[in-house]
């Protein structure tokens, strides 16, 4: 089967039930998308399917179909993204392991257009765990990025 990831087409001939996460990490060597729980409970593996945030650890690769997969490596062409800049400016990451998933989730939230409220941030971001506890800075960074746009 073929899947499109970050604008490029790839052939995959393994088990079609393989979660997208392991195709990205093991086959395509796109290791920015992380493993944290394997059960859609922590959000470390968050990627976009046609712009919508999904958990790659429970998404069989065969379910991707013709959808465009975007990973942290492909978040915005050329690398610049308002969230990335604010993430750096506010010093959000600590260990950084969950941050690709946090950024992908936040990017999907911001793509809705209107600046999210605190409640909307709670709603959208509570599936993404961070054991370093960077939540308050993530919240502040989302507010800042949405206001600066």
């Amino acid at each position, binding site marked *: 089967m073929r899947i499109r990831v970050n604008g490029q087409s790839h052939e995959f001939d393994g088990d079609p039930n393989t979660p997208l996460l392991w195709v990205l*990490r093991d086959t395509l060597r796109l290791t920015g998308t992380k493993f944290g729980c394997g059960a859609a409970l922590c959000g470390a593996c968050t990627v976009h399917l046609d712009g919508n945030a999904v958990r790659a650890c429970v998404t069989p690769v065969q379910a991707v179909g013709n959808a465009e997969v975007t990973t942290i490596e492909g978040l915005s062409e050329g690398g610049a993204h308002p969230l990335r800049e604010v993430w750096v400016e506010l010093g959000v990451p600590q260990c950084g392991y969950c941050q690709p998933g946090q950024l992908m989730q936040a990017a999907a939230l911001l793509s809705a257009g209107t600046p999210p409220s605190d409640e909307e941030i709670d709603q959208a971001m*509570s599936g993404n765990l961070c054991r370093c506890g960077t939540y308050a800075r993530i919240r502040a960074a989302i507010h800042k990025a949405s206001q600066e746009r």
Partner: protein
Amino acid sequence: MSGVENVSRRRFLIGTGLAGGLVLGVWFYGTRGDRAPMAAAPSGSSGPAFEPNVFVGIAPDGTVTIVCHRSEMGQQVRTSIAQVVADELDADWSRVVVAQAQADEKYGSQNTDGSRSIRRNFSRLREAGAMARAMLEQAAADRWSVPVTECRVTLHEVVHGPSGRSVGFGELAEAASALEPPPSRDLKLKAPADWRYIGRPTPSVDLNDIVHGRGVFGMDVQLDGMKVAVIARPPVLFGKPKAFDAAPALAVAGVERVFELPTLKPPAGFKPLGGVAVVAADTWAAIQGRRALDITWDEGRNRSYDSGPYREALQVTARKKGRVVREQGNVDQALARAHKTLTAEYYVPHLAQAPMEPPVATAHVTDGKVELWSSTQTPQVTRREVAQALGIDESDVTVNVTLLGGGFGRKSKPDFSVEAALVSREVGAPVKVMWTREDDLQNGYLHAVSYQHLEAGIDARGQTTAWLHRTVFPPIGSTFDAGRTFAGEGDLSQGFVDNPFDIDHMRLENGRAEGHVRIGWMRSVANIYHAFAVQSFAHELAVAANRDPKEYLLDLIGPPRKIDLAAMDVEYANYGDPIARYPVDTGRLRNVIETVSKSSQWGRTLPEGRGMGIAAHRSFLAYVATVVEVDVTPDGEFTIPSVWVAIDAGTVVNPDHVRNQCEGGSVYGLSAALGQLTAKDGAIVQRNFDTYEVARMKQAPRSFDVQVVQSDEPPAGVGEPPTPPFAPALCNALFDATGKRIRSLPIGDQLRA
């Protein structure tokens, strides 16, 4: 954004370490292209904390390489170590690169735990930078044939004062490499007022990689021909496979080998748990293969471990007199004569470190030598344990340290690295052993479950006159000595025997508890349950005395003084540092309480459903006070609108990192009040983040105010001290809002009752 490049990633992808060619001391890279050791180790101040091991390299192009010998797990140690060295060297930050050290004794201790990377290395790092600076000045003086006193390093070059001539670091590197290093006593350290980087909120050197998904963690190591293994470990400690059928696992496409690992014998120590390894061509095949395995376990005697009855047994012990570890006055008499007495018991369950990146290591064993890439907090211990397990020399084990996706003490234990080495040796290929979340929660090193009994007497004026505190928990020592049931000095030195209260009659006791699982360190360790009990009970006493909790806490602490535990014949570890340099200073504890009271506007009137709580605690030589504000709905759901923290950690290298640790450490403390691991028939019940609850965005404090106390005192710990006061401050706030007292964690549905 700084121009500091992260070379760690490139380093281990090409498999050769810059640090690998370095020997003790300070290096200059000459034009011959090799990296010869040019200088002996800086020898600084004496004392138990002194371990000479600081590394600077300057390339002919002027690039300054600073070697970070501690593990990066979110505390930004790669940045703060570089800040200290670069400051004394007066290097241009944009021309500094950070290299990650491999395991090597030449660095001194690399154990990244106990909140000691800065406090144990600050002086040595400064001396290493100052030594390099002095030699560059001498090289410039020789070049110009002028007195060295006329030459001065200024931002990556040496300037000759009288003539105004200047020459860059790179041009001086070769000449400087030929010089004798000055003795430590001749080194001139900068005055703090001249610090360029120390004390400034310099951004992390790894930020840019992280936000682009380029940071390379242990999980991300990829080697040519690498296999992936997952291991079915015995669900009960010291269990072993009775029988297993490998065929269904081998039938999974991609699974290549299935074999049993050596059975673990007590004590557990850092050794692997044993079990059955499933080795496959890729991760998914390995996971599927393990799922297909059919194993019957011989569970052994720990099958009896059940958290319900165990709690009852702890309670029985806590209600009986234990081993006295500190005593002053006559508590029994004072309790008998008290106007009023108060008794409370506190329970904190087993908890898991649960770093977002589960344990993972990759090993390649060839010709009796091992190269390892590990997400480890303890590269040297890892090297030792791998060598022992394989029966080879430590010099034949190379340990590369990746970025760590969180550590929190879990990755201080090298069992997972040993597993990788054993499996790689068996299959003759590079192997990554990855733990799933279920493995992490069910086969971990658990934070000890604890039960504490406290009694106090209050006089007619509401003052506390007597304090009895018994703590009971399976000690960390039981992991290393299976017979250990009493707590060790280290356990009891964490917020127990160093009780800061000024109470005439005090007795502190410890009761026996047997370990049935591996007990291990978790961020701030025994301070978590000791601070929870002490700071909750202090609040209960304030309520009983009808006093303001903050004022009452200050009264309990008493006047500013240095508590002389030795004079009371108390064994006190003081986190491995001298008490003269780091006393138990109640003045500093009082100060953080006063500071956080001001920042939080303590005492203000709150709307219905809101409450505020305070707690303060000294740990890892730092002082932290925390105020939590909660908002509780009528049906008992709570949120945390704001948290205020004040920390006095002495001299601080990077105040923004300190603030980040205070925020994150608070959230870690919140998680300690939300989650629990329980055992049934010897096995851990919780399997993943659906049943092991940790704080999420919607539960986390919405905003933080962190006050970092300005101090010239020696640097103290930062990574752990913010955690202990959080849970008691939270539960005190919940009491303030609802009148309901949480004495048993997790909070669960206790507010709904």
